[in-house]
């Protein structure tokens, strides 16, 4: 049983963890038996972080109702997501202060005050830490340096076992991620002997993704966050990473894109709620690439590329490996979610629903309600990615034609006769009826429900697209 501890630092870390949760929900392959997401962000009100926590909780709850053993063919939600603590976050101590209070500025002598003034602006000193570091890694590197003494970090160290892996997600052009990543790495590689399993931590396989600028922010004179500093901050950090980071990790992933879209300029808090972006999906794939990597004996630096330069990517624009990793799981889940949203209620009298005891009462239960909520988040994410720049729009999300025509770039096999002559949701219902007849009805309703949809969509992909 190997676990993968995934640290998501700052807003980008949270959004990548969100993408990772969705990929795992669709059943994208992950060789780790369990993923332990750990969010690090002092900005308690950050919407991106809070939404990710919601999604992780939904995932955990849905997964807890499912059984996975040798006979289980269902891969939806296969990978266990387990929390280190109930809110999936490392709580930063003293983060409810102003920065100057945190460093005890008032008690410094005149010389030290002058030094501090050299390193931090007046605005930095008066900044409220609860709102994050607003793109200032110089503040973050001071505050985050103490999280290793937190109870949550001790719990992490205690639960870490030989064979487990660590992955760190951060952005290089903001405040929290840029500051937190090198600190976290340093604190793991030189784990204090007072921590349990410190020797395992020091030698642990570590992967990391550093997300280079991939979006901008609109100009706002009131805001501390300024797009024009992104590139210079990135260059400075990369210079440091070259010697201070790259050699300390087993696999280092670099990702970025042209600054195509400017988001509204929010320094943090509830208003920081960026749309899902393809780069975050690619970063989540880096996590999985590391989890599935068998040879970690040498240090590797990896980059991500796409096959075709396009402003609106589809599956055919991705590289072969990426395409083969995500096309089938995402498409299957697309059919699954679409059926649940648009056809399940009308088909509760269908053969499969009666046979598997899927009744209206089941749709009102906690399991289904949470699945519906998670699916709504996933759908929003797909929508956001499709309208973002660079966009990733592999599906038609508001279809009016046959459902099977909606995977862009794939031509479905059509027939006049037999089951493949049926269209749209009726074709899926026919597939569900056929699959349900061969299923083991001794499993729980939740298991049967997921199994019948997984197996049916698997067969649909083969019958319709030869995949």
């Amino acid at each position, binding site marked *: 049983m190997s676990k993968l501890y995934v640290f998501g630092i700052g807003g980008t870390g949270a959004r990548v963890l969100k993408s990772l949760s969705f990929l795992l929900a669709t059943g994208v392959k992950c060789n780790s038996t369990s993923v332990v997401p750990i969010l690090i962000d002092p900005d308690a009100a950050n919407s991106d972080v809070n939404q990710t926590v919601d999604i992780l909780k939904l995932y955990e709850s849905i997964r807890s109702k499912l059984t996975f053993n040798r006979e289980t063919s269902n891969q939806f939600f296969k990978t266990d997501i387990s929390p280190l603590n109930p809110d999936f976050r490392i709580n930063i101590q003293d983060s409810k202060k102003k920065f100057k209070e945190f460093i005890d500025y008032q008690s410094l002598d005149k010389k030290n005050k002058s030094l501090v003034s050299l390193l931090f602006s007046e605005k930095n000193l008066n900044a409220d830490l609860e709102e994050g570091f607003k793109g200032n890694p110089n503040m973050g590197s001071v505050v985050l340096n103490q999280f290793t003494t937190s109870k949550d970090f001790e719990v992490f160290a205690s639960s870490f076992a030989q064979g487990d892996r660590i992955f760190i997600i951060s952005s290089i052009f903001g405040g929290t991620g840029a500051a937190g990543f090198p600190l976290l790495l340093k604190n793991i590689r030189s784990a204090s002997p007072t921590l349990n399993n410190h020797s395992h931590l020091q030698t642990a396989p570590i992967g990391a993704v550093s997300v280079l600028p991939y979006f901008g922010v609109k100009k706002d004179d009131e805001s501390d966050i300024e797009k024009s500093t992104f590139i210079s901050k990135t260059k400075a950090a990369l210079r440091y990473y070259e010697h201070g980071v790259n050699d300390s990790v087993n696999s280092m992933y670099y990702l970025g894109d042209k600054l195509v879209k400017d988001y509204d300029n929010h320094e943090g808090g509830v208003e920081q709620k960026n749309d899902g972006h393809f780069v975050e999906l690619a970063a989540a794939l880096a996590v999985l690439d590391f989890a599935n990597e068998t040879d970690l004996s040498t240090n590797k630096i990896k980059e991500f590329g796409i096959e075709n330069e396009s402003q609106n990517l589809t599956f055919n624009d991705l590289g072969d490996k990426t395409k083969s990793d995500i096309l089938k799981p995402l498409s299957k889940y697309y059919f699954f979610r679409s059926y649940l949203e648009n056809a399940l209620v009308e088909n509760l009298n*269908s*053969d499969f629903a*009666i046979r598997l005891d899927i009744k209206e009462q089941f749709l009102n239960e906690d399991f289904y309600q949470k699945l519906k909520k998670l699916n709504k988040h996933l759908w929003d994410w797909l929508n956001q990615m499709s309208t973002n720049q660079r966009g990733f729009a592999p599906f038609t999300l508001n279809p009016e034609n046959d459902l099977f025509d909606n995977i862009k770039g794939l031509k479905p096999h059509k027939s006049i006769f037999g089951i493949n002559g049926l269209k749209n949701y009726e074709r899926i*219902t*026919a597939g569900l*009826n056929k699959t349900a*007849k061969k299923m083991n009805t001794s499993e729980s309703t939740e298991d049967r429900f997921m199994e019948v949809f997984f197996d049916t969509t698997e067969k649909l992909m083969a019958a319709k697209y030869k995949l």
Partner: protein
Amino acid sequence: MKDLIANFYELWGGGYLGGFSDQMFNNDLYFPVALYSIIVALAITIIYYYILDRPNTANMKVWMLALLIGAIINAVVAFVSANNDLVEIFASIGEEVPNSFSYDMLMFAFINAIWTLILMFVLSIILKWKSPNSSYIPF
């Protein structure tokens, strides 16, 4: 066998229609109607459960429509078959079919339709199990 089939159509005496029933029994006219009716009922039931079968047809409305079609076809078969055979029989002795037989033929057609409905219900229960989409129709 002849008696058994006659009993079904004459409802063990309750549906005995006098001269019409005598003609049907004596000339052995019940058997072909029964045979055609069983074939029609079986064919429609098989078509419903295994050929037309699809999720959109797997409901009580379509099933009842199938039964109704079977009943109508067999009512027509009964009426036409009895009428043609009796016209021929009476013509062979230089007579016309009595006028009262028209009502009797309608009754015979109606009874055949009712038996068709019952037969198709029984056949549904027997044949539904292996149907890909309709194995829970009618229940």
